[in-house]
């Protein structure tokens, strides 16, 4: 089986359905791993400054 990293570096026009399915399975496995990880209690976030709060809005994709 080909390494998924190698598949990402390949011209996507040359990828077979099996290659695409392998990428999908890898991503599904990562999701299951993420979901099965024990939930950690989030640390209390420090209060945001006004500047930090506005920065949160910065990378919302715009439709321009």
């Amino acid at each position, binding site marked *: 089986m080909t390494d998924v990293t190698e598949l990402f570096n390949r*011209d*996507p026009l040359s990828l077979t359905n099996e290659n*695409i399915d392998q990428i999908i399975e890898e991503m599904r496995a990562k*999701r299951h791993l993420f979901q099965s990880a024990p939930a950690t209690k989030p640390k209390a976030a420090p209060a945001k400054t006004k500047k930090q*709060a506005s920065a949160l809005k910065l990378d919302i994709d715009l439709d*321009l």
Partner: protein
Amino acid sequence: MSTTNKRSFKDGLQFAWDGTSLELAQTCLRKYYYTMIRGIKPRRQSVHLIFGGIYANALENFYKHRAEGDSIDEALRKIVRLALVESWEHERSESGERIPDTGQATYFDDTKKTRVNLIRTIVWYIEQFADESEDSMKTYHLQSGKPAVELSFTLELDDELMYCGHLDRVVDFGGQLYIMDQKTTGGTVGTYFFDQFSPNNQMSGYAWAGQAILGSPVRGVIIDAAQIAVNFTRFERGITTRSKDQLEEWYDSALWTIKLARQATSLDQWPMNLSACGNYGGCPFRQLCSRSPSVRENYIKSDYSEHVWDPLKAR
């Protein structure tokens, strides 16, 4: 100023409007001028626009394939392939076709919004939301029987103005109609994130157009927000509603803005809204506006490329 070759202009004035051009005119008339009248954009596109654009296009195509009868797995395979191709910079033939075995992966200048994380986000979204049970949200079907996906519209705003756009998908949720939209962010998704969509020009425009097209009340817009982190993607679904009164208010404001922009075009006057320069990570024309007017044309030649935004362009 050159508007002669632009389809959305007549006699030098824009008559076909969409959410993007309206937002530009509301934000800053100078920004409207550079985008709609001059037709320029920065040569280097924002990673957020690249990531968000490919992601939204992939999900829109997913529901299109599903409506055509594909299984979830078949549709997912098609959109993962599409996203991989769209995030690869092939050399192009004279006719614009991609030339196989050329180019390289698009460089995503971000630690979270990377190409691998784009594919991860698409797969995880489908895992979480694609299997819609009968008692939850489902794609609305038009009276013709066709699923309400990929609905392009051109509606009359008044005697001489049109409002154009595209609804990715209309859903029936709890017996009420909603427009679906997707957003991505590197930040945490919570109340603060969803608050920004009310009031919001794009969402009101969707709801206004949706009810006009469907001939039925549209309750609002359901926003599936994806928080993109380095090692995971987390989704939150938010709803922003619009009442009939709110939509009438949006309509009046939109007409006012459009008439103002048309007046500015007639007078060739483009005042800057200096309080909007820092919005959303900074206006793409901020560097241009910060330069002395005498050197701006040279700066445009070196750092901007031609880009005609056409509200009438069908997807």
